[in-house]
């Protein structure tokens, strides 16, 4: 009998591994009857795991996720998206106005404003790390929604931001903003997103969790081969884009969506390997910013028994 699973997802290319595993029957092959539950944002997805409305999900490590882990409701069990030098990753953007005023590289960030969605979000982490590396003091502006950030950036009300490549390229291509750097230069091997589940699943549903990770990894392998390493050939790449397009930019015509999907392809870790160093760094950063309680350790957040640490 198949196990019913609810998998939380955003309609982003970064979630493609799950879509591939589903479409190509890898989940079914593991005896998992997967149903997707789509979210508008990452934060409610973490809460949905805690409330039992979703079983597995992939998203960035946020303060909320850490808090839920601390309350014994969620566990990180694997890694997904990673920054990797050489692969097109997240971009650092500057508004046209700021660019014209001299913000042409991240080194000029001092005294600038930097858009984030919320305190403790991945944007906050990246911005904080980048500015620290440049010895710059920046002003973080929480704007909640990506839409609000884009509006603020276009009208020059915030100076800088970092975002996944397809959005960055689309914006820069339209001449609305300028790309001034790569996140990967500052945060090499940054573990952008992780696979996580409820603490109960991690502790008591070992078989099911392992099965999920296996199918997920097969999906990731296909995706990496087709769009990241481009070792599977053009045909496989196009086919992959078609598959992903069912879920991402579905309301846009294929021709328009294709570019965004290809632009957005970033590596998904092999075998859902987890970069513990990066996770540790993120955790320490949360603590140093006093966004989470001091007592939280990496063991509270991560169940390392499922995947290899990178």
């Amino acid at each position, binding site marked *: 009998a198949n196990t019913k699973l609810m998998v939380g997802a955003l309609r982003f290319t970064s979630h493609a591994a799950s879509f591939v595993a589903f479409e190509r029957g890898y989940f079914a092959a593991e005896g998992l009857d997967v149903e997707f539950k*789509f979210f*508008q944002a990452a*934060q*409610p*997805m973490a*809460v949905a795991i805690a409330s039992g409305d979703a079983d597995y999900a992939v998203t960035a490590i946020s303060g*909320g996720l850490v808090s839920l882990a601390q309350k014994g409701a969620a566990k990180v069990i694997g890694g997904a998206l990673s920054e990797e030098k050489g692969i097109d990753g997240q971009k650092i953007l500057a508004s046209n106005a700021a660019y014209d005023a001299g913000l042409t590289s991240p080194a000029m960030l001092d005294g600038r404003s930097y858009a984030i969605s919320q305190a403790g979000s991945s944007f906050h982490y990246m911005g904080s790390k980048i500015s620290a590396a440049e010895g710059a003091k920046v002003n973080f502006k929480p704007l909640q*929604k*990506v839409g609000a950030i884009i509006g603020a950036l276009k009208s020059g009300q915030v100076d800088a931001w970092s975002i996944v490549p397809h959005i960055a390229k689309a914006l820069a291509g339209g001449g609305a903003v300028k790309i001034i750097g790569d996140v990967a230069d500052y945060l090499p091997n940054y573990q952008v997103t992780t696979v996580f589940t409820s603490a109960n699943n991690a502790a008591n549903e070992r078989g099911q969790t392992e099965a999920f990770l296996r199918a997920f990894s097969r999906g990731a392998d296909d995706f990496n081969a087709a769009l990241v390493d481009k070792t599977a050939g053009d045909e496989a790449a196009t086919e992959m884009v078609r598959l992903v397009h069912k879920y991402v930019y579905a309301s846009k015509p294929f021709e328009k969506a294709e570019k965004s999907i290809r632009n957005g392809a970033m590596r998904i870790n092999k075998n859902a390997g987890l970069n513990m160093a990066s996770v540790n760094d993120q955790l320490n950063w949360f603590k140093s910013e006093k966004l989470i309680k001091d007592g939280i350790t990496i063991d509270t957040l991560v169940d390392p028994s499922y995947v290899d640490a990178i």
Partner: protein
Amino acid sequence: MSEGGSETARPDLARPVPFRGGGFRPVAKRGAGIVVFVVLLALAEWGTRTGWITNLTLPRPSDVAATLVELWQSGMFWTHLGPSLTRLVVGSALGVSAGIGVGIMIGLFSYVRAGLIPLVAALFPIPKIALLPLFVIWFGIDEGSKYALIALGTFTPTIVSTYGAVDNVDRTLVRMGQSFGLSWMSIVRKIVLPGALPGILSGLRVSLAIGIILLVAAEMLGAEYGIGAYILQAGSLYDLERLFAGVLILSVLGVITSWAIGLMEKRLLRWRN
């Protein structure tokens, strides 16, 4: 003084009494509302066409219309409106009926009144969107939390308007009922409730408007389809045409709701002039 003086100037002349009444009672001017809408739309269209209003500031009305037509033709209109209407109807039915129930209890019983009015006053200014993460835990990510959010949002204003309406029921009518030895239930059913109905219905106007507003907040929670989700998605893509198309749908929904309540008032309150 001066006025009296000027009149005495021509003592024997018969003058008509000067008119000094009228006014202070605005009357309905048909069509003025439509004119205002048309003028505003024309201005926006003209402004965006000439570039006087940038496309970052306001979408072109004709583009919004085109987006709506497209939405309709793609069949997605009902895909979005359907779930939203269900949420609105179920959520506000729960909130409104509970609110009316509690409101009537507050209106009738001293202890309920004293115990609950401060609680309602404390609950009213709590922003529902602040509690979104909790709603997921309390009611799940599915329809439950959406119903709960809309129900809670319509609950408090309905309570307030209902107990106000019960308070305003003419107490002589209640005394009349008592003087004829009517039972407590009869008085509540036949005198208090019908007497409070006008106030309850007009309170419903506000409650349902709030319900519509909360649709967007409710659909922040893991909703794929729905007008609120459509708006949120358009917002996150900074797609102003779709954003305005969605807002327009909500606005029309609000006007229709208000009109429907007007109809109910006409039906149920025929006894008023």
